[in-house]
């Protein structure tokens, strides 16, 4: 097992290398000038050119790439062109809101999606099944920001139950922390719930049609036990896979959700950085997000061994 994990970790290196090259080239080939934005609207061309030199943007792209890559290999993500702060510390400052949002969304979404997916499979063809599938289509089709605005309008403006925006650190109290995360988690989780619920239903239907399930039913195993102890465990591998793959969806959604709900997380950091072409931040965040995505999928692969003894062998 240890050998497998090490091999998989090593295989991450070329993936991250390719990500690094693509991110750098895409950003630097795209138009936009951070120096002009830093200098301000009334700046003279000379001032803009001077700032460009100070930022090293007058160097050839290959040279800028080498400088960045050497620093990256040493664990240095660079320095923000705007604030002059190290990108790693900016990401660290913004990590708590994003991790909180991702975890609450993941927990609520996985619990809810698997529950309604199993329910829909158990009641296949019934109005409950159609309701769940209708919700899944809706959840997957409506953009995160639309869900977000509707939730804000209903629950924050009209009912005044929850705050419109912002984030309260966990250190300021668990209740405050949760209050700020309820609406963003629902908005962000909608598509994720829809995705996992559909896969759960389909996989459960396949498993429920297996001979051993018929045998279990014939032996008089209780429905709940049959669904959750026998069928769900056998359906777990594709569900775990889609949860892992869906992390990309979650990361994309975090960026929008944090903007709509004004959560000062890594998603907001990168959106603001894109508007200003703050290359080191964009590159750093994408590298971190890519690393998280690859790691999560490694964990998903490893989780197969828990669900399927054949993989362990």
């Amino acid at each position, binding site marked *: 097992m240890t050998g497998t994990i090490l091999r998989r970790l090593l295989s991450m290196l070329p993936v991250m290398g390719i990500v690094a090259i693509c991110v750098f080239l895409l950003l630097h080939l795209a*138009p936009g000038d951070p120096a002009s934005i830093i200098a301000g*609207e009334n700046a003279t061309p000379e001032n803009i050119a001077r700032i460009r030199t100070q930022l090293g943007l007058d160097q050839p792209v290959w040279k800028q790439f080498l400088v960045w890559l050497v620093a990256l290999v040493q664990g240095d993500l660079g320095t923000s062109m705007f*604030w002059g702060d190290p990108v790693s510390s900016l990401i660290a400052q913004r990590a708590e809101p994003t991790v909180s949002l991702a975890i609450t969304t993941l927990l609520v979404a996985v619990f809810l999606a698997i529950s309604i997916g199993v329910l829909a499979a158990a009641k296949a063809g019934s109005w409950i099944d159609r309701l769940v599938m209708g919700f899944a289509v809706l959840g997957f089709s409506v953009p995160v920001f639309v869900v977000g605005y509707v939730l804000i309008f209903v629950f*924050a403006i009209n009912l005044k139950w929850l705050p419109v925006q912002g984030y309260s650190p966990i250190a300021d109290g668990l209740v405050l922390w949760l209050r700020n995360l309820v609406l963003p988690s629902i908005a962000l989780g909608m598509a994720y719930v829809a995705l996992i619920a559909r896969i759960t239903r389909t996989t459960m239907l396949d498993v429920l049609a297996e001979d051993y399930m018929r045998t279990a039913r014939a032996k008089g195993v209780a429905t709940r036990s049959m669904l959750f102890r026998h069928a769900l465990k056998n359906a777990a591998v594709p569900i775990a896979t889609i949860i892992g793959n869906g992390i990309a969806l979650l990361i994309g959604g975090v960026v929008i959700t944090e903007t709509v709900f*004004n959560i000062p997380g890594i998603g907001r*950091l990168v959106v*603001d950085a894109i*508007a*200003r072409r703050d290359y080191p931040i964009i590159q750093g965040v994408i590298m971190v997000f890519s690393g998280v995505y690859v790691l999560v999928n490694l964990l998903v692969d490893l989780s197969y061994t828990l669900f399927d003894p054949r993989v362990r062998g």
Partner: protein
Amino acid sequence: MKTTRRTIMRTGMAAAGAAAAPGILTAQTRPPASRTIRAVMHGDIPTYDPIWTTANMSAYHGAMVYDQLFGVDDKLQPKPQMVSKYGVSDDQLTWTFELRDGLKFSDGSSVTAADAAASIRRWAVRSGTGQLMLQRLKDISTKDDKTFVVSLKERFPLLLDGFSSPSTPVLFVMRKKEAETDPMQKIDTIIGSGPFVMNQAETRAGSQYIYDKNPNYNPRNEPPSASAGGKVVKVDRVIFQNMPDSQTAVAALQAGEIDFYEIPPIDLLDQIQTDRNINLINLADLGTVGYIGLNWLHPPFDNKLLRQSLLYIVNQEEMMKPTFVDRKWYAACGGWMTCGSPMENDANTGWFKGGPNLAKAGELMKAGGYDGRPVVVLQATNIPYMMNAATVFAQQLRAAGYNVQLAPMDWANVVQRRANKGAPDQGGWNVFFTSSGGLSNANPYMIGGMATTGDKGWFGWPSDAKNEELRTKWINAPTLAERQAVGRELQENAWDIVPHMYYGQWRQPAAHRKNVTGWLKVPEAIPLWNVSKT
């Protein structure tokens, strides 16, 4: 020691407590909401050095933590702020300034004349007015800790206007140590003698900027008036929250989560006005001026007649209306300098008074030999007023017979591409849109776009010796009446050569909770002193 479930739980709880402790302690020392103002401004602070950049948000930050030698009153007249008394010699070449007693930086050190002199020198290198002063400057010397002297080689009537101007870069006084930094290098140390102190420990760059009341600040014993008078702070803390989504910002204002929103979108004003807890307020009488940059280096607008043809095509009313909807927020303006400012006049504005005249435009296009080549218009799609104005502009030009190609892109891309002096079909451009503060535009020297210095000038690179002569004449005019007279001459010439154009003038109302009062009007800045919350 035996490891049990209880010891693991205890250790875990202790570790969580230790990790959360700094945050909990910080939370306990925070001022209450009733003593805190949360404000959403128009953008993010790109750098904390307000001299190094002309970005307005850096000046907003500067007005919080630094003080000025002079401010402007509500009639835009210079008034002493850090200065207690000043005088000028009969030949107007020697200006002597004395600082007020009790001025202290946030590190506890006293503000001295040497700090002021170093700050003037650094500011002068980066400021348009300052550069004019430098050309005439003999020396800035200190007589004692409180007195400094500005000696000039020739008279400079705009000296106090420059010292007091709220247009960026603003002359903020820093410690000598920071002020002696190369003006081309950014300063990261934030120690000022202004009414607030930046709380850097709790500030999160890009998210929220926290300013606490400066206990060392010593305000003037006078009623406040714009950036002049007593800057009395009436709350404990001000937070600039960066909130890029306008819909969320309006919802947050309605819910009372923020107290002030500088730029509520015009299309949401009706929604805001129905809320009995919110007031709309106009904090900038001169507003903002929409600027149309024309490229003088390439056809067709390297041709004076074709530039003149635009005067008879462009309809500001049509360009403003899609964004600002109601005339109470916008106006068409035929002036070369801001309408409503002392420099407004009607010289050579027949084209404006007569309204669009496509027949006349056609004559000029024919005389100018327009050959149907594309006119490339840079369109910033992420700034609604620029995007809408460019769309209408393109249609107006097409109706007149120009072949227009809109080049949609985001603002970051516009500011890069407009610096390209190449031909429009080789990455260059013919027209771009931007805006500038009404106060800056009321002065032929405050913004680069007013210059006609050719290749060395601002984007568009217009070249005209007469305009430059008149600008110098304007600077040397000793009285306002004489400057107004030169202003007419400037405008007469400008609408003949058409260095650039305008797409209108607007006043963006700000929105605030009704329980937050005491807002002062300062052009191109939002002062947070004198503001109280009940």
